[in-house]
């Protein structure tokens, strides 16, 4: 049962609804959820930066290892070293934050360059760009990451760097698609005809006005993926290394005790991953519907 109702008898000078009003409530809920997650991330980042942690993240209580949530003095329990889980969960954000931004920057920068070269300048570079992106696409990215990390350093910056490079083809395809779509609409050509400089067309018209929401969505989805990939690497031993906490290595260290029935120390960070990644997914979906107007009409 769907309800449609006209609010006014005459809609004078279309009271154009704000973006919030015209977006589906569910999408708003997604975005709100995503934003709450994002806010929590930012809060956690600030907390970590200023050291407002509920507990010393490095203090070990060797007699209280792998305690479940609610253990005395430990709201979310402790890890395999008897360290409190909560401040470490918060601290993770700090470890992820800058590298995550770097990953997005690398992906967008590289993908943008590829996309613009092949989409905007077309013929000249397309072959080369296609070749490069095909090479990147041919790698199973976990294997590539494993190689790079095993070879150089199991450092989150390296992980995010590889992730950025391997995500670039996707971004490039997106931008290329957008450009060719705009080209079909003669929009780019008319801008050239009007004497607008290339740089302005590319950056303002294409990237800023037409790709920004795509890129934001891509970035949110990508952040989720980054967290999951880091955790996969952690399982293989090449994720972020102690003493820097990462959700991946927290889950991994806890999972060693999972089969013995000690579920909590891995489940708590795993839940953190789940809620955050889900938040990114839903934020992506909601933003997509909101900004790209993907509602049925």
């Amino acid at each position, binding site marked *: 049962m769907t309800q449609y109702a006209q609010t006014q008898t005459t809609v004078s000078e279309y009271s154009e609804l704000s973006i919030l009003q015209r977006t589906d409530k569910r999408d708003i809920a997604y975005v709100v959820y995503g934003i709450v997650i994002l806010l929590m991330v930012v809060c956690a980042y600030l907390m970590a930066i200023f050291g407002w942690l509920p507990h010393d993240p490095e203090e070990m209580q060797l007699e209280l290892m792998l305690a479940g949530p609610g253990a005395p003095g430990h709201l979310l329990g402790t890890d395999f070293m008897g360290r409190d889980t909560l401040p470490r969960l918060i601290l993770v954000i700090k470890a992820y934050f800058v590298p995550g931004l770097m990953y997005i920057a690398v992906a967008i920068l590289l993908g943008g360059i590829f996309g613009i070269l092949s989409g905007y300048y077309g013929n000249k570079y397309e072959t080369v760009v296609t070749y490069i992106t095909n090479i990147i696409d041919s790698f*199973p990215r976990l294997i590539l990451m494993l190689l790079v990390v095993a070879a150089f350093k199991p450092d989150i910056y390296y992980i995010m760097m590889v992730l950025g490079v391997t995500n670039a083809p996707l971004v490039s395809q997106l931008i290329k698609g957008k450009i060719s779509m705009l080209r079909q609409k003669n929009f780019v050509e008319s801008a050239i005809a009007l004497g607008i400089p290339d740089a302005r067309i590319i950056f303002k018209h294409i990237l800023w006005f037409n790709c920004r929401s795509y890129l934001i969505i891509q970035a949110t989805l990508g952040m989720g993926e980054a967290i999951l990939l880091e*955790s996969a690497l952690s399982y293989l031993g090449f994720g972020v290394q102690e003493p820097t906490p990462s959700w991946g290595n927290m889950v991994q260290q806890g999972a060693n005790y999972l089969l013995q029935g000690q579920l909590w120390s891995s489940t708590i960070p795993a839940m953190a991953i789940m809620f955050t990644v889900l938040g990114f*997914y839903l934020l992506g979906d909601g933003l997509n519907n909101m900004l790209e107007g993907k509602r049925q009409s």
Partner: protein
Amino acid sequence: MMVSRSAKPVVLYLTRELYVTFFLLIGVSLVVFAVLYSAPGDPLAAVFGGQVLSDAQREEMMRNLGISNTWYGQYWSWLVKLFNGDFGTSLRSGQPVLGEVTKLAKNTFYLTFGAMFFSLMIALPIAIYLAKRGTDRLGWVLMMFAYTTSAVPLFWSAYIVIYIYTRFFNTLPIGLATGESMNFTQMMLPVFMLGLGSGIISETVRFLRDEISRVFSEDYVRTARAKGVSVWKHALTEALIIPVSEMIASKIPFVIGGAIIVEQIFNWPGIGRMAWQAAQDRDYPVIMCITLVTALIVRLTSLLQKTLYVIVNPRASQETKTS
């Protein structure tokens, strides 16, 4: 401008793509080699494990193993061998690499494609439901399910599944461990886990949902409805065959990546585990071979997908001429 439709474009296209694939694989091998070479540690690691060797010893060993000291020397000799159909021998086990890899690649192949199939089996109905009915209550539950499966770390959910399984059935769902021949669950559980956890379900659902609703608003689908004939039959190619094949082709690298983890946990003898081992050993013939084989699988899948695209999409056979 117009060419009568025949097998020619497809054949031409395939020839060109295979030719490109060849160069692509060379490129891939160069990248891997560069990464490997610039990494600390050397090929002798595979032979000597934890031992510490002096410089003189290591030089002598390298000479005896026939390994050049320079990167281009090593790469070149590898390449020359490759063109003679020889992938070299594993530094660690001394076995011909190709034989070992293909033996295990078969297992990984079953695992990945099985998982792919499984996740499509889950994602497709959800995507169709969402596209046709929108996000009603059931649709929402289905969507959240699809998203949640992709939002948890694969290894953790695998552990959880094993934990539950062992407590319910009092046996370990791992074929290798329990006996000579695997039973159905032992075969299928890793496949299911990889299918669920490799993160492709959510993306497939998202992509297919949008694709299906887009195609169903196409003019020609409306025409089909106006003709009173089966709409699905008309929309099938563009709404399902093409996006599904695209999805398979583009997600194969992800699933292979996930296979590394599933292979470790479920003790599945595949190339993922081998790659992990070889990466640590700097066993470069093995790594090169594995990356080439996986890149080839990825590439061939995408080639297959593109060929399928050219076959099912008559426009494409024209486009391939220009692009």
